[in-house]
């Protein structure tokens, strides 16, 4: 694989970090819909991490 640019390396981590920030704060300032948004936002990094850890190895 060719070397990735900094942007390529950080695209996914930055997205997950942003979702984590949203997930941590929204439920703190709003109930109801705010809680649901938090669950969804925090579930993404958990889901992505779990999926990558357990999926079969990509052998390209």
């Amino acid at each position, binding site marked *: 694989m060719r070397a990735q640019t900094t942007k390529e*390396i950080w695209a996914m981590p930055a997205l997950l970090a942003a979702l984590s920030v949203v*997930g941590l704060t929204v439920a703190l300032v709003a109930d109801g819909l705010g809680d649901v948004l938090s669950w969804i936002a*925090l579930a993404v990094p958990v889901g992505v991490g779990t999926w990558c850890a357990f999926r079969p190895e990509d052998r390209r």
Partner: protein
Amino acid sequence: MRASAIQAWFVVHKWTSLVCTLFMLLLCVTGLPLIFAHEIDHLLERSIDPPEVAQGPGPADVDAIVADAQARRPDDVVQFLVRDPDEPDLWFVRLGATATAEEPTAFYFYDARDGSFLHEYPVGEGVMNVLFRLHVDMFAGLPGTLFLGLMGLLMAAAIVSGAVLYAPYMKKLRFGTVRRSRSPRLKWLDLHNLTGIVTMVWLLAVGITGVINTLAIPIFGQWQATQLAEMAAPHMGEGPAGDPGSAARAVRAALEAAPDMRLSFMAFPGTGYSTDRHFVAMMQGTDPLTSKLLEPLLIDGRTGEILERRTLPWYVSTLLLSQPLHFGDYGGMPLKVLWALLDLMAIVVLGSGVYLWLKRRHVTFEAWLQSVQGEAPAQEEARKAA
């Protein structure tokens, strides 16, 4: 990034991690059940729900509740009357060996409708208490708490340096790659980086709010020494510090003065959160954010007069907002489950970090850099085989 810069960050990551990892593992493992402390307490009947009744005789007499609690432990001092916004039918009474004692001797549940005694929380007993103490101070009091705070700061440094190392490491690896079929060390290196980067923001948030929580006693001490003292100063000459008056009257006065707020807890005279002759009612807001904050009212229990009212300084509010962000108790059960899953992933980060250190202690930095940048680590593999 130049190799020398990467090496410097690597050294920071290695040493900050090495020092704090065992303590962080302890905190993650003990913290896992503590996320569900409320549910576990109810399951083990350490806590109870108020009984279902058709219609109570109206709000209970708070003074009668206080008198009952005092009669149950005549040698102790009533410290706080506590409410829980999720349990409007309960009053809680906390007693201590002295007014200023940090640890309670008893925590009683009373029915807020008829004033009857319902339950005593098993203070300082059981497995949950052991887990709590291990998590908060390792049975070493304030020094233990502050030590864990220092370890938390090291973990924050380890997370930041780990994130810096993530970029050179991923240069030739797609996000989420786990090289399972090479060597166990490579597999766990990939898993360490994956789980580390995925939990980065959450672990930083829980770590830093945890560090702030370790400063709770100094933070409240600062407030007591400055703002509370200022609130109290104009009123300390008003008669001898004898009978402080009626707690019920103080509660009524507080609720009348702040009709759009709820009582969080009321500090009895002499507790350090009040004066030796006045009550302090800590009021909380009713919307999600303001319900985490407090506003103190200084109250004369003999007259029911509100003597002072002011908002808490920024550093106490920071502490109060750090608590939910550390506990994960502000978004219902799904948020607690996510907290637990992220905690488990953090355990993977820590455990794999220890494993990698044990495995690569004898690997030179150059060999490590080569391996992490996705070059075929032939030399290293050969050395390991030898």
